[in-house]
């Protein structure tokens, strides 16, 4: 048995792909993890539709966006609270720290995992919200709408994974996480809702939409950079 390992380190991209595949495999082996956020988002939307039954048609597009964004925001909370659940069992996280991989690849794998789950939630909640508000379904297939929604998801995923990693070993993670996540996600939620609402109301590229999109992209960049830079290191 020869102990010869010329190069045992896999590339950064391969590491990200392997970690993403593993996270999705874990999700598929435990479908409740996938279904719960969707179910939760649907409940939030239904509650909104009962609480606000009749709306002025002029504010309906804005309501669709606000409700969808809030439903995704709350549903993602569930995803983040479980983001590192499988790594906590059987000290998998320690084994990952001792594997020859970059910590930033681990974080990026987690962000992409949340993006996949978030996209699924976003598609379902957008469709349901549009139907409940009596809007045209074609709106949510608009490339601008999809792009801005993904930018919102990127910001929330970056922030959520960053905070989940920071509070990973904190005793009061369940309390600490929402205390940090709620206020820090306001700029992402606000800018994405304003940008999407501006688009839905006029369907033209306005200054208002440009400004809000710029703010959204800036916060995406900040949270993604921080998440990668503050990845849990081996020491």
């Amino acid at each position, binding site marked *: 048995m*020869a102990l010869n390992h010329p190069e*045992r380190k896999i590339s950064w991209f391969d590491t990200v792909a392997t970690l993403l595949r*593993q996270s999705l495999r874990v999700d598929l082996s435990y479908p409740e993890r996938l279904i719960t956020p969707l179910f939760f988002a649907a409940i939030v939307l239904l509650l909104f539709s009962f609480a606000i039954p009749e709306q002025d048609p002029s504010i309906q597009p804005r309501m669709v966006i606000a409700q969808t964004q809030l439903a995704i925001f709350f549903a993602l909370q569930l995803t983040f609270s479980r983001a590192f659940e*499988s790594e906590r069992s*059987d000290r998998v996280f320690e*084994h990952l720290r001792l594997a020859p991989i970059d910590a930033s690849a681990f974080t990026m794998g987690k962000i992409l995992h949340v993006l996949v789950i978030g996209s699924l939630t976003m598609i379902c909640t957008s469709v349901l919200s549009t139907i409940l508000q009596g809007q045209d379904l074609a709106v949510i297939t608009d490339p601008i709408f999809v792009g801005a929604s993904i930018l919102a998801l990127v910001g929330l995923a970056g922030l959520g994974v960053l905070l989940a990693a920071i509070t990973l070993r904190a005793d009061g993670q369940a309390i600490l996480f929402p205390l940090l996540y709620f206020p820090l996600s306001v700029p992402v939620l606000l800018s994405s809702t304003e940008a999407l609402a501006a688009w839905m109301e006029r369907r033209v590229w306005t200054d208002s939409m440009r400004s809000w999109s710029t703010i959204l992209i800036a916060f995406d960049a900040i949270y993604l950079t921080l998440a990668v830079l503050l990845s849990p290191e081996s020491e």
Partner: protein
Amino acid sequence: MLDVTDLTFGFGKRPLFKGLCFSVTPGQLIRVDGHNGAGKSTLISIICGLMSGHTGSIRFADDDFRKWTSWVAPDANGLFPTLSAVANLEFWLRLRNQHTSTDVLRDCLNGWGISGDWLQVGLPVSKFSTGMKRRLALARLQLENSKLWLIDEPLFGLDERACLKFKNHVMEHLQAGGGVVVVTHDARLLDGIKHQTVFLGGA
């Protein structure tokens, strides 16, 4: 492979060990011995970089020791509970750039007594007993084929047959030029294997 020099560690003001020095060279096995609470598992965790707060130096032969080091601990099999045995092995080997075919993985697992129903696709390792999980962790150790093994109570939960199998693997590993640092209270593992002992408890 590994040089530990003047290593001192303690919780608060009470030192667990003080001025610890030892080296691991190819083909050498170091047994870490001491009573319960002497800091044996802590020492392994410090060497692995999982704990900090020590003084002294730990030097590995290569810059990134993670490429050629494997770790096993009693409560740390590193298994994803909802995935199958093969899926777990595939993941960890892939992270070490090892592309091992499913047939090879199954052969290895068969050798460890994980066969038949245990290898059903979709049977999660959460259904495994403590001993079966440990066998799976040791199968991974075998497949990773790292130069240096840092192993803490590897025989935990194993039956006589599996103990003997692991002992044979340790002997093969040492003959191939590998190094081992092992914490064990089980004399069966070291019977007939030349080793040095680092005793903790004198601080």
